[in-house]
């Protein structure tokens, strides 16, 4: 088929992509690596920042607020350059650890930048959980940790998922900025291909298609997850099993139990 198209001059590609498959795959994996590392760190750090911003203690609240405002208002590229090009200049003062290397600098820049945005999403979500929920959990004698883990967090997660998912897809696309530090991700591979083949249009259209092929299914999958979580679906096997047991017990016909004073039926 390909040969036939080529023979008739209808084959649209001039680049021999089969020669670049290995590098493209490596770039793709590196893009996913930056996204996974950057997003995990950003989500954890963002959650910590959100909790700090909700603290009653000013000394805890203010640094988190300053951080969020600072990094929300600085371009990602500036953070990348500071970490990759700027920090090594301080090596004589702080030691070798400031030379982060490409992957660490790239992933850290993404984490620092997106943590600021995610903290806003998480803060809004945590604040969106009605006070009555915490109160009801307190009245049941749940510990502070249990209240957070089993009552507040799952509800906040439902509220935070749409914004968080958008950030994840956005971060995946933003890894392309790491081309500026030759990070070896997809965009860097694309630049390498275009500089060697001079087929700029074709190369970047193919890259656009690859990014789309990653981002679109990801965002659709996240939408599906959002809907499942909102519908209260059992996502863990353990919960699934418990609900199945409950369904079986609820289905058995029994007379209403007699109540006992101060006790269960």
């Amino acid at each position, binding site marked *: 088929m390909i040969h036939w198209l080529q023979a008739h001059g209808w084959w649209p590609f001039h680049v021999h992509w089969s020669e670049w498959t290995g590098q493209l795959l490596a770039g793709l994996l590196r893009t996913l690596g930056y996204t996974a590392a950057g997003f995990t760190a950003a989500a954890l750090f963002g959650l910590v920042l959100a909790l700090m911003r909700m603290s009653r203690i000013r000394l805890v609240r203010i640094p988190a607020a300053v951080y969020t405002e600072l990094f929300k208002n600085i371009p990602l590229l500036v953070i990348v350059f500071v970490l990759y090009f700027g920090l090594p200049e301080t090596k004589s003062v702080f030691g070798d650890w400031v030379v982060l290397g490409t992957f660490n600098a790239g992933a850290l820049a993404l984490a620092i930048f997106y943590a600021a945005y995610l903290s806003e999403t998480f803060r809004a979500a945590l604040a969106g959980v009605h006070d009555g*929920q915490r109160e009801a*959990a*307190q009245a049941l004698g*749940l*510990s502070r940790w249990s209240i957070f883990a*089993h*009552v507040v967090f799952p509800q906040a997660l439902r509220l935070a998922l749409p914004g968080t998912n958008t950030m994840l897809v956005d971060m995946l696309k933003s890894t392309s900025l790491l081309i500026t530090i030759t990070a070896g991700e997809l965009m860097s591979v694309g630049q390498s291909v275009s500089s060697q083949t001079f087929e700029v249009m074709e190369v970047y259209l193919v890259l656009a298609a690859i990014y789309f092929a990653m981002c679109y299914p990801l965002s659709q999958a996240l939408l599906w997850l959002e809907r499942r979580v909102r519908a*209260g679906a059992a996502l863990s096997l353990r919960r699934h099993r418990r609900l199945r047991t409950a369904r079986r017990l*609820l289905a058995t016909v029994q007379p209403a139990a007699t109540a006992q004073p101060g006790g269960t039926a």
Partner: protein
Amino acid sequence: MTLEESRTRYDGQAPPDRPVIAIDGLVKSFDGRVVIDNADLHVLPGAIVTIIGQSGGGKSTLLRCVNLLERPDRGSIDVAGEPVFAGTRVVCRDLARLRQSVGMVFQRFNLFPHLTAVENVMLAQMKAAGVSAPAAIDNAVRLLRRVHLAHRGLAFPDQMSGGEQQRVAIARALALQPKVLLFDEPTSALDPESTREVLQVMRELSDDGMTMLIVTHEVPFARRISDSVVFLDGGRIIEQGTAAEVLDRPTQQRTKDFLKTFDDPLT
């Protein structure tokens, strides 16, 4: 592990003559405004005590002081013979265990919306009392049957009517085998049909001997099930006695005026 095995509870049921709840000289203020003014209230085992009074009169605050959702300014509170608050400080050694001994039902239900009805009833058993999952499921199912909601066990709160949600909330409050149940205007957010369903369950609980402290505007219901009625006004207990004494033969003018509004709201 079952709930029974897991519990080293507030020491047993209080003796019949010893109040499950003993509140003495309780004072609570918000921003300098006194909302509970030197209140004394004793609830004996198996008794149904109803608190009535105008909105904003301190009824809910008094209730919330019992399980320390609100911290009083001074006074004393004992629950099941254990001192909870004395003088100006909390003396309760284990707040979580106190709260497990005092079930609470809220006006707005406050069910956990991400969990099914059965999971709402299971949660505190597993996470607060350390009951195993199979025992918690078993107990939750039995409690849902007790409030006539076995058929709604796998429904989420937003799929249930207000009355159903409140009955799940009652089952949830019962799950830890409390010594006493506190009801904070349990029917105020409900339509008449749902109100009837909830009051029916509460009457069944009273028939079973459950000790209950109820804040309500349902005067006919209070008359029917209460052993004792308390009229609270401006943070002060104006009058208390049997349902017949307070509701049918009130001695205080404020009580009379308040009860009169139930005959004709515009008088």
